[in-house]
């Protein structure tokens, strides 16, 4: 099994909260990696903590070996703060990094502000391997981002408390789950609207209209009495899940797998409606002067071998079809599933952001 640090928030979702943004900023600007005395180099941002550490250890050295381009890695938060940094640096004509790992919501937000450099697919033959769902484009169809890593949020449960593995997201609504669930606290990171739509309304199309979303929310409101913890902090839920305090909920498939491998009574199940598939993309800052090398990097990262390496070493799901990789069944199962995933309606989360967050807060707070 891949070695991983536990207790560290994988995607640094908490970075903005736990340390306060000052700490997050220090992480961004305070300690740039040591640059090797090589002529060709790239500054690459990765989610601080576990991701960056794994990339530094297993992935970036491979890239340097293959291309001779040195990598200076920068820890970045997943949240808004990083985008604000890029945006403000861009106004000053600078780029804090050449390439960053950007979540889907932020990709679109950045695209709206024209922050990303347009990429040329012709210079990156391997990008053709990447599944279309993980390709980001500007409104005019030009390429602005390529899937970097992808992961699943699944239905997790404590094997001591819940003997039989659940098979469907519908499990969340069952009366016997009263005060047993831990769910992510925010509309934009729990993706529970997508889950509810897929489970109870036959698909995500109902999320096209406000009336439809309201219907989904009403259905979701029925879950409230089952929820013991609405969490923002991954570690808090993970601990409660392991101990059986909160025996069921939604959580990251890969981390749950690691906990199980460590002997904790935890299982992660891909429900028949599919796991929630979220991803981060590589995007090049529009102000970067190293666009050629950036293309080289993204091309390198899109190779099936490298995606397989990521699955093995970092625990992410490949952005290329499984068939192109040499992952064994067991390796693939530890990071992904053949069941068709629920891909969040990022467009909805973006376009109706304020309305959604207001309704959502009212839904769970009241």
């Amino acid at each position: 099994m891949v070695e991983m640090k536990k207790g560290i928030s994988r995607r640094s979702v908490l970075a903005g909260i736990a340390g306060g943004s000052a700490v997050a900023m220090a992480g961004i600007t305070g300690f740039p990696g040591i640059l090797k005395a090589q002529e060709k180099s790239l500054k690459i941002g990765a989610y601080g903590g576990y991701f960056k550490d794994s990339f530094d250890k297993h992935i970036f050295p491979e890239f340097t070996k293959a291309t001779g381009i040195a990598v200076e890695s920068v820890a970045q938060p997943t949240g808004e703060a990083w985008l604000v940094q890029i945006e403000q640096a861009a106004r000053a004509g600078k780029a804090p990094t050449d390439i960053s790992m950007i979540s889907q919501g932020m990709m679109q937000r950045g695209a709206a502000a024209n922050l990303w450099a347009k990429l040329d697919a012709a210079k990156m033959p391997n990008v053709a391997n990447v599944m279309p769902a993980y390709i980001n484009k500007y409104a005019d169809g030009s390429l602005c981002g390529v899937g970097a890593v992808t992961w699943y949020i699944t239905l997790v449960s404590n094997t001591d408390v819940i003997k039989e593995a659940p098979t469907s997201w519908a499990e969340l609504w069952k009366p016997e789950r009263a005060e047993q669930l831990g769910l992510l606290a925010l509309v934009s990171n729990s993706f529970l609207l997508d889950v509810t739509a897929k489970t109870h309304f036959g698909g995500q199309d109902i999320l096209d209209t406000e009336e439809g979303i309201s219907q989904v929310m009403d259905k979701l409101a029925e879950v409230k009495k089952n929820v013991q913890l609405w969490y923002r902090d991954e570690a808090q839920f993970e601990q409660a899940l392991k101990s059986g305090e909160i025996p069921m909920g939604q959580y990251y498939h890969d981390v749950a797998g690691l906990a199980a491998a460590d002997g904790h009574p935890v299982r992660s199940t891909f429900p028949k409606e599919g796991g929630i598939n979220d991803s981060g993309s590589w995007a090049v800052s529009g102000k970067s002067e190293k666009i050629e090398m950036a293309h080289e990097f993204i091309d390198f990262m899109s190779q099936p071998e490298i995606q397989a390496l990521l699955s093995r070493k970092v625990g992410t799901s490949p952005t290329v079809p499984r068939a192109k990789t040499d992952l064994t069944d067991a390796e693939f199962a530890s990071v992904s599933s053949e069941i068709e995933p629920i891909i969040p309606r990022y467009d909805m989360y973006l376009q109706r952001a304020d309305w959604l967050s207001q309704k959502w807060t009212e839904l769970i707070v009241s």
Partner: protein
Amino acid sequence: MKIKPGKFSDYAAIGFPAGMLTVFFVIPFGIMIAMSFFQRVQGAFYEPAFVFENYARFLSTFFAGILGFSVGLAALVAVVSVLLAFPFTYILTRMARQTQVVWLVFLLSVLSLSEVLIGFGWSTLLSRTAGITNLLVSLGIMDKPMSLSPSFGAVMTGMVYQTFPYTVLVLYPALSRLDPSLVEAARTLGSGPARSFLNVVVPALRNSIVSTLIMVFVFALGCYLLPQLLGKPSHWTLSVLITDQAIYQSNMPFAAAMAVFLVLVSLSLVAISLLYGKKENAG
């Protein structure tokens, strides 16, 4: 020619604190106020503008309820904290010097714990699987362990735990300066120890108590992690929602508007209690 002596150094002396105040309070607060009138651009960032919609959105019964809860929670935390810390500090100041130092170092170390650590600690202590109820069960006081968190009681416990050392340290100077002969005088005049504490020590330090209450109140009002870690969503404070808006919804203008409102509400509450205190002193 005569030079006015001390003129320049006088200005220099007030210049430093004035500068610090400007840099660390006036400017950030000014930026926040300006930001609160900016136009939010959904799906992107915000644009400089002068619009009231951020405030308009806040003026709803929903947010009024949250604000009321936040203020009430902070007030309750302040009252409970002072109720516990005042007698504690009084007893502490009457202990041997060395004992006091040990306690103060201990309290300082509690104060150095981060909110995250306190939240996690208490959520474990109050959990069904590893919490104190297990102890009560083994002592035969309870039938089976139960989960005490998340709940309002858990939020209160965590927040009071966090503010208690702070409260003690704020009260300590006033209580250790308190003339011990005041209590002795009360005793010679016929007051037992408890009574002289209540009708001499407490009223003699009324002003310290009020200012401590205000400080703890403001401190508790800014607390946004413990309500998340130890409370149900209905116990989330306005600070939690401000954080959500700023960090997760990237709605800086709305977050700023809520923050400005929170600052104004707490300032006016502080002003009211100070005015009331003044009146009481005069009367």
